[in-house]
């Protein structure tokens, strides 16, 4: 120590700050390695997310467009209303078979007006349409009997093979063994495209429509399943939120801390980890077999999902209540508020953003749940379209979005596969918007205090 002061500057320092010693080098290397691992991990995660999204989008967007054939149809009085009385009962007696000739002649007319050359018979031409074309025509005539005798322009769904051809799913090679369509029909489709009679446009029916039978994938929509999901979410919200919040407030603020509450607490956490299919079989046993609630009904689905969502809501609500500083409770009690006033006037408003977030995330979870719905039969096939199903409500059979997607994915026709992906896009849009709403609400309310 004294040496250093004697000859200042001449003493070589033990180590220079400008060169790193071995230990520092090792430490720095370890740190950079760790950062690298982290970045690789995040990179892999992002890559998978991007792959997932691009797969879903590339496979699913096709479901939102559909191929239509536009044709003028002569609604011949001689075929539809032989008596000429416009008596609705008599018009209704003409079945869809009676409408098939109208479609055939519409094709013949189209070929003639556009001067197309084809060897196909009109019956074969008509096969490029969906099987629902005749019933579409019939429904129109029954709704507008005064139009009989007129020539009306109609937009018919093309069948799923033609639709697949437009979307590149079906090619001339792939249909070698397909008895539903022939290369000659595809040639005819090409001619129709050329004259503008066959077009691919946005298909609102996929979003608002009902499911369709195995034979008509081109007509299937997810709208009714969406209504089923909506009804279930209403049930979940109406039951899980009040029950969950009341239970958590009691447990967190009022319940004595003893072994009973400890057991309850542990079991709530356990319930959160119970596989959803267990809740499904419980719902089947209790709500349907024991309480005799109707099968496949959104009410039962909602009850099962409520059971599943409750632990999530209770856990997040308790966390939100715990996060409110105890000084706020002291302050309220100190001015002579009762415990309940302290909780409801001060603690609950502060915990509300957390509760809301937990509830929305619980709902989003419930919205995407499939397994319990399969067990209670919420894969009902609902053929009726939007306006009728909206009113059907909680007790009539319905489906739900994820169950509908599952249903489509397991059907044989590849056209349904595309619809399953499209359904996933819609489901994801719902989930993402719910989660965004949760984040926005939390931000908004948190700013206020």
């Amino acid at each position, binding site marked *: 120590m004294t040496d250093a002061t004697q000859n200042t500057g001449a003493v070589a320092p033990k180590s220079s700050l400008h060169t790193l010693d071995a230990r520092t080098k090792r430490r720095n290397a370890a740190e950079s390695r760790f950062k690298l691992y982290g970045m690789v991990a995040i990179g892999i995660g992002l890559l998978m997310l991007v792959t997932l999204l691009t797969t879903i989008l590339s496979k699913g967007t096709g479901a939102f467009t559909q191929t239509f054939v536009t044709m003028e149809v002569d609604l011949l009085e001689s075929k539809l209303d032989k008596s000429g009385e416009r008596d609705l009962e008599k018009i209704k007696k003409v079945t869809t078979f009676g409408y098939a000739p109208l479609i055939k002649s519409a094709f013949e007319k189209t070929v003639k007006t556009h001067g197309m050359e084809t060897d196909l018979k009109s019956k074969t031409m008509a096969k490029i349409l969906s099987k629902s074309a005749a019933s579409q025509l019939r429904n129109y005539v029954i709704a507008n009997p005064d139009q009989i005798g007129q020539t009306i322009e109609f937009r018919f769904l093309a069948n799923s093979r033609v639709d697949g051809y437009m979307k590149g799913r079906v090619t001339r090679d792939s249909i070698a063994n397909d008895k539903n369509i022939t290369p000659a029909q595809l040639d005819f489709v090409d001619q129709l495209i050329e004259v503008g009679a066959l077009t691919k446009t946005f298909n609102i029916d996929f979003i608002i429509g009902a499911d369709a039978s195995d034979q008509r994938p081109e007509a299937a929509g997810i709208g009714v399943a969406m209504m089923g999901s909506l009804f279930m979410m209403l049930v979940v919200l109406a039951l899980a939120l009040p029950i969950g919040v009341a239970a958590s407030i009691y447990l967190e603020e009022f319940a004595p801390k003893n072994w009973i509450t400890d057991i309850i607490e542990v079991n709530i956490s356990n319930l959160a980890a119970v596989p959803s299919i267990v809740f499904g079989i419980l719902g089947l046993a209790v709500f349907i077999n024991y309480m005799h609630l109707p099968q496949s009904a959104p009410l039962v689905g909602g009850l099962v999902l409520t059971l599943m969502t409750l632990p999530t809501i209770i856990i997040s609500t308790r966390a939100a209540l715990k996060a409110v500083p105890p000084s*706020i409770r*002291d*302050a*309220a009690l100190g*001015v*002579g508020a009762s415990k309940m006033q302290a909780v409801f*006037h*001060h603690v609950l408003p*502060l915990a509300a953003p957390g509760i809301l977030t937990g509830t929305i995330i619980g709902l989003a979870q419930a919205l995407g749940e499939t397994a319990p719905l399969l067990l209670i039969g919420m894969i009902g096939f609902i053929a009726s379209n939007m306006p009728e199903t909206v009113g059907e409500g909680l007790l009539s059979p319905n489906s739900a979005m994820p169950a509908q997607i599952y249903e489509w994915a397991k059907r044989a026709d590849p056209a349904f596969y595309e619809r399953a992906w499209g359904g996933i896009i819609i489901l994801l849009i719902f989930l993402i918007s719910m989660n965004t709403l949760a984040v926005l609400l939390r931000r908004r309310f948190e700013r206020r205090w």
Partner: protein
Amino acid sequence: MYDTAKLGTDVIQTTTKISARNVQVYYGDTHAIKNVNVDIEAKSVTAFIGPSGCGKSTFLRCINRMNDTIDVCRVEGDINIDGEDIYDKRVDPVQLRAKVGMVFQKPNPFPKSIYDNIAYGPRIHGLAKNKSDLDEIVEKSLRRGAIWNEVKDRLHAPGTGLSGGQQQRLCIARAIATEPEVLLMDEPCSALDPIATAQVEELIDELRDQFSVVIVTHSMQQAARVSQKTAFFHLGNLVEYGDTSQIFTNPTDERTESYITGRIG
């Protein structure tokens, strides 16, 4: 700063407001307060001093039964306010706390507007018949809390936006808005800077003509400045209780002397 000559005269006129007899407090198996007997006088400031963990805050929280909120806490003995046992079965702690207000160590305004902070107590106790009554109570309380001039233009701004000292005076104003008779203060200045502390101390001195103030403090200087009576707690015992001037100048107990001279604590 304060008129010390006034001290003596005030104390003589006062009567006993709170009397504690053989008070024992247990936290589970821990015996936190041992056999405390004390008579606290009305319209005066009584200071509880003592080293950390000596039980002074615990005893303070017995006076408005805030300890009821702690599950493991058990209180034995009698505490009377105006001759009524506050641990009687018929006493509702909520009603008691309206009569015995409390100010906490850390300023804890509600995350609401300044106005709502003050108006909350009167509202839940139904002290105001209408809006103008309530306005009046708010103004009066803020004036008595010596913070009116600073906040009168922003009554609807959040109370949490005030400075620490202002927040603590807001909390005092909130506590006196319900017209309590006793005001308990648990180290009200420990989170404040010296200037804010001086303001709060000045306020405490003014509050003395309307309330019986009991203040827990770590600072012996503060006790000497604001209180007329001082109680010294040590290891759960009330070691000495008497006039502030006597405690600080001529303590009878050895432990008190050690503490105020800085040898223990």
